[in-house]
């Protein structure tokens, strides 16, 4: 691979300004995404995956701020870009779709206009051209009767249709990276599969890289080539998605894998209960010392309570952070 990776996050630390003190909501996060790659970020609510994504597009706002580390987009450090340059990246080169297609569209503007606005804003098209392109964009996300639909308001569309519109808006300018933050959580399971399939196909056609953020390990492993598992503000394991179910190295990942229902195993093993991970994610203000997973980990020993584990490299570009990794 020549040239710098599409996006490279190095030792990122995001601080939460909690009045008198600052606490690290995200710490020591590093990963890189190559052009056209699909990368997943998995973790429970509050583990820092969404704020990591916001940091990538330079939109952290008080009380959150990037305290250390670097985020490079094609080798250029995002925090050092001027506000206008950052704004030009957003929507144009890096796009994002959200969990809530219900609220992410402006209720008083027809959806076609909202797509067209992207062409006017980033590509300098006239409204006439942009409206034409918007209809094409709607057709490309397989919205039936796109010319008629373009005139509809968001409340006239179903959840799945709205998420299609969001994808059309996000991909309108042909971005290099699509950040999908829980893109299907609010949708029915059947619609979920269609949307994921659509997103994956469109990005593969256009060579758009995907950073998919979700709590659903199964979904992410299905879409992404590589998966990073986050826990309490740190990445605990990065693996190829084909390996993660077979041979995960971190006890937390193992816990996530065990908590997924799987077809067939129930019949094979008889009636077994799904296993959950005991305990809850600690609050940002009182992360435990040492390995942050230690209070919930069955394998925790003395060293886990005192020392944070170093990164250990695994074969095939994977990594794990655990003292007990052989």
């Amino acid at each position, binding site marked *: 691979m020549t040239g710098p990776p599409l996006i490279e996050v190095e030792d990122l630390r995001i601080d939460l300004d909690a009045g008198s003190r600052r606490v690290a909501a995200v710490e020591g996060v590093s990963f890189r995404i190559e052009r056209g790659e699909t990368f997943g970020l998995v973790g429970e609510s509050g583990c820092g995956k969404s704020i990591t994504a916001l940091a990538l597009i330079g939109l952290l706002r008080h009380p959150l701020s990037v305290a250390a580390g670097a985020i490079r987009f094609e080798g250029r450090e995002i925090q050092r870009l001027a506000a206008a340059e950052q*704004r030009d990246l*957003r929507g144009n080169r890096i*796009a994002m779709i959200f969990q809530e297609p219900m*609220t*992410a*569209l*402006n209720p008083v503007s027809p959806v076609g206009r909202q797509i067209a606005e992207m062409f006017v804003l980033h590509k300098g098209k006239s409204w006439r051209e942009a409206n034409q392109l918007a209809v094409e964009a709607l057709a490309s996300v397989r919205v039936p009767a796109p010319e008629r639909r373009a005139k509809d308001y968001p409340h006239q569309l179903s959840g799945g249709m709205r998420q299609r519109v*969001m994808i059309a*808006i996000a991909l309108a300018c042909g971005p290099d990276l699509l950040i999908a933050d829980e893109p299907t959580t609010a949708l029915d399971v059947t619609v979920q599969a269609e949307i994921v399939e659509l997103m994956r196909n469109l990005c593969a056609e256009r060579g758009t890289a995907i950073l998919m953020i979700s709590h659903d390990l199964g979904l992410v492993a299905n879409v992404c080539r590589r998966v990073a598992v986050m826990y309490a503000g740190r990445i605990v394991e990065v693996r190829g998605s084909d390996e993660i179910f077979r041979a995960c190295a971190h006890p937390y990942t193992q816990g996530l894998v065990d908590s997924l229902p799987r077809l067939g195993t129930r019949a094979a093993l008889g009636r077994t209960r799904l296993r959950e991970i005991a305990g809850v994610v600690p609050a940002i203000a009182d992360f435990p010392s040492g390995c942050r997973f230690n209070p919930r980990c069955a394998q925790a020993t003395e060293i886990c309570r005192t020392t944070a584990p170093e990164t250990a490299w695994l074969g095939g570009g994977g990594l794990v952070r655990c003292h007990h990794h052989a």
Partner: protein
Amino acid sequence: MKLGTSLIIGAVLFALAIIVGVLAPWLAHTDPVMDANLMNAEEPPSWIWWFGTDAQGRDIYSRVVYGARISLTVGIVSQLVNSIIGVTLGLSAGYFGGWWDDVVNGLTNLMLAIPSLIFALAIMAVLGPGLTSLLIALGLTNWSFTCRIARASTLSLKSQGYVQAARVLGYGDLRIMITQLLPNMLGPIIVIGTLGMGSAVLAEASLSFLGLGIRPPFPSWGSMLSEARDQITTAPWLSIFPGLAIFLTVLGLNLLGDGLRDILDPQSRSRRI
């Protein structure tokens, strides 16, 4: 349907006032200023003089019809100025926050603390009577409620998903304010504006009554009331008809405002769909 009743009555009354104002030259029987004839002084309402005549023998009906022009111009234009000032200040204050928000808040509180009619009186005293100074005085003194509403709407809309999404998609501040925030707060702003037009019509009447608005002999409803003050027992029609015109117009505007609130309120809208 009950929802539409006040809207329809209000719209009809307001439309009627506008039509009367626009068609005044055709509707009026005589020239409202020049056609004085002492032979017909203080005639009570009759088939010839519909609303009676005043001490100079001028036709009250014609004067009320022409008065609509001034009263409505003042109501509409001054409220438009108020809305533009209020929305610009409130929207930018809510959006940017910080020191600008403090400045706008201070200014709004100041405006709310001074009775707006007294403030308008002071401006009129400096600028002198006349239509232009009336528009300036009323246009600068009644924006605080619009400003409050615009600021509050901005604060609540700012955290909406689509405003966040617009920022993520690379929209600039001005574009977010114009395409995302403004259209979504237009409902309450229009309602406040309609109600504000009613109070501007009243304020014009008050200022003209006090002799600081439209000067005689030009007819505005307020100045007609002012002139009629002395003859209220001997020729009550001089007060009744301009008063009725003010009453019906303001009532119409208030009903229109209420009706608009009902249909522009997002909750009642979702109830209908």
